[in-house]
């Protein structure tokens, strides 16, 4: 694998729940050490696309490649090896409700981490990560004792537990105040610099996607296909699709393309 092979390649992906088509003809590449943004209106299938990337939902057609491996054709051992390099923040944070935040962050280390690491070392690392997301005071609280935005940040700390090579973030800044959101952007950029991880982010937040996005794709709920590809900043300047144009400027789209979209 050469240095400039993309970290993730998605080719001709078709996603469906049973007979209900969500998106088709989705193709893109995510370069190493870049932030890739998945954009689109609510309900167009962004979280569903993430599920296909992280191995939770098999595609109806198409491929998802990590390096040289087609994830969905690989055997269980190869999939497991790929999965161990993932860090995932779910849209609802998906914290384990019976564990404290520190225990949540320690769980990936216990399950997939370095076996030689002692519990005290794991705890220390968990505290460092929680501090990174501004939650050091909440380490021993349970998920139902903290706010939605705090859950999101704790979920991010858990996603970072094993220094992932592939980081997937589903609306990381939803529920965060502008300052925390800004800090989060910096954290993501810093991580990309430091670890060279490929970061895939679903976000609606305009300032954030312009600030961090190196590349991206725009999914459309009506045609059930991607309607734009490229860095968000570039799309802002040059994309002439009326919906993308309106979306990135936070305008109401012209009447004729508005119906059916939220």
């Amino acid at each position, binding site marked *: 694998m050469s240095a400039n092979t993309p970290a993730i390649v998605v080719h001709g992906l078709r996603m469906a729940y049973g007979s209900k088509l969500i998106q088709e003809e989705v193709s893109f590449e995510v370069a190493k050490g870049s932030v890739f943004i998945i954009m689109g209106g609510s309900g167009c299938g962004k979280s569903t696309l993430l599920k296909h990337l992280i191995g939770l939902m098999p595609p109806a057609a198409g491929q998802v490649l990590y390096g040289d491996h087609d994830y969905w054709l690989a055997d269980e051992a190869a999939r497991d090896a790929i999965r161990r390099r*993932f860090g995932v923040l779910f849209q609802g944070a*998906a914290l*384990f*409700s019976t564990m404290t935040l520190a225990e949540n962050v320690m*769980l990936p280390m216990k*399950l*997939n981490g370095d076996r030689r690491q002692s519990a005290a070392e794991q705890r220390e690392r968990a505290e460092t990560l929680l501090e990174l997301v501004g939650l050091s005071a909440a380490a021993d609280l349970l998920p139902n004792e903290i706010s939605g935005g705090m859950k999101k940040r704790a979920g991010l700390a858990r996603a970072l537990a094993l220094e992932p090579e592939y980081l997937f973030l589903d609306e990381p800044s939803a529920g965060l105040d502008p300052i925390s959101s800004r800090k989060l952007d910096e954290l993501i950029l810093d991580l990309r610099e430091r670890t060279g991880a490929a970061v895939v982010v679903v976000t609606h937040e305009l300032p954030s996607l312009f600030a961090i996005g190196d590349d991206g794709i725009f999914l459309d709920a009506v045609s059930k296909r991607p309607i734009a590809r490229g860095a968000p900043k570039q799309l802002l300047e040059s994309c002439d699709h009326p919906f993308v144009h309106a979306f990135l400027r936070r305008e109401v789209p012209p009447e004729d393309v508005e119906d059916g979209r939220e």
Partner: protein
Amino acid sequence: MSHARRERILALAALGRGVLARLAVLREVSTLLGEVILAIGRLLRGKARFDRADAWAVVQASGAGALGVVSLVNLLVGAILAFVGAVQLLKFGAGQFVADLVSIATVREMAAVITAVVLSGRTGAAFAARIATMQGNEEVDALKTLGVSPVEFLVLPRVLALTLMTPLLYAYACAVGLLGGWAVSAGMLDLSSHLYWSRSADALAGTHFVLGAGKSLAFGFLVAFAGCFHGLRAGRNAAAVGEATTRAVVSGIVGVIVIDAVFALCAYALDV
């Protein structure tokens, strides 16, 4: 095509769809059953991955935590058996046989069945609700992305804990049921305590206990399995948790009664 004929074909198609849906459920059940068995194999080889603290909490909740309600219900059932028996047996002047009736009915049938029904409403429902909630919160997805099988992590500890705790609860339920019978016989029939306990001891044979304990082992597995199965199958909305719980309890109770009937037939055929 005539109207009547069309109706008939539509009815047939609906029937077919119903059967196919049932068959699909059967397939899901056998898939989970297979996965549980594989997980037990991994556990025996020391390779299963689950959270010990969580497993221990399950053991406590499904064992010691159920003592109160198991006591109350079995005490009352023992008393009811004695009561019903006494009214009939006294007509023949055979009051002392109440002890035989209560002890055999309790040890052979009631303690196991009643305990399993209570556990289905209590523990089976709790398993379903817990797992369904985790499903809705994407916690199950999060486990999968960590490379952990939800069957190993969530189902295995629950099924094992309840399967092992139910026979213990059964033994306890027997004692409490006999006590309930004794209270009624001593209070209502003026049967001496000595006579009640000695008649009970004579009436009971080891096979009764073996049968009861064997059944409760099967019941414990069934109730836990039903709870976990419906929890894992749950949809992802808030209503799904309620639905999963209801299904778990209903299928748990029906399953217990069906298995009990099968055991009764086998016992009859084998003459034990």
